[in-house]
């Protein structure tokens, strides 16, 4: 379920997801995230514990070091964010993305 926050000029939506990828948020998973958010004009952020990453940045994402089974919050800002969050949630729900 989305949490919707209205701000002065744009709307932020966020949702909690479970990271089921068996190897966690490893390099190939990060590159897949970057690909999923590529071309989106708004901003997607992924929060893990007290860390937060710009989902379009490999270096940011890799610094999350999110372990398998982690609870993440994905946040989208801008028009068209919801389908991106859907894609990310679907991706994170998989277990067998790679043996990386």
């Amino acid at each position, binding site marked *: 379920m989305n949490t919707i926050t209205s701000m002065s000029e744009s709307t932020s939506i966020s949702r909690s997801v479970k990271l089921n990828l*068996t*190897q*966690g*948020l*490893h*390099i*190939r998973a*990060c*590159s897949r995230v*970057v690909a999923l958010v590529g071309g989106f004009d708004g901003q997607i952020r992924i929060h893990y514990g007290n860390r937060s990453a710009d989902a379009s940045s*490999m*270096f940011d994402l*890799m*610094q*999350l*070091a*999110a*372990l*398998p089974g982690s609870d993440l919050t994905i946040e989208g800002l801008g028009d068209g964010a919801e389908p991106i969050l859907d894609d990310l949630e679907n991706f994170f729900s998989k277990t067998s993305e*790679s043996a*990386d």
Partner: protein
Amino acid sequence: MRLTEFVVPEAILPQLQADSKESAIRQLVASLKNAGKIQSDDEEAIVSAILKREELGSTGIGRGVAVPHTKHPSAQSMFATIAICHDGLDFESLDGEDVFILFLLVSPPDRPGDHLRGLETITRHLKNDDFCKFLRQATTVEAVVDLLQEADEGQS
């Protein structure tokens, strides 16, 4: 986690000459073998595993950096080496740019947390423009080790 916890100084290649991704990976793994971290019997299997991983998608992550890696049962704990390729190397990186800094990482298969923390440590430091720049300019093992130590000391 500190870089000096898992980078093997004796295996650092500060002036790598390589004309291909495979050549670079082979030299890095051979350097780890020569430093005593990899057994001769495991060398080819580790090279093959890293190359196979690269086929799934390049570990050239941008900013002139690549992190080829694998998990291997012979690794009791995570270890890594570094190569500086001053001429640049086509690594089919995500950003399409040549690679100048390579961190090759070998981890035990049963500890994904160590692997992720190693990657986190590497990328956290390489996101620092000065660290990245000075590492690219380093031409001796001593210079690379000094930079790793300075980076570790600066993180606390």
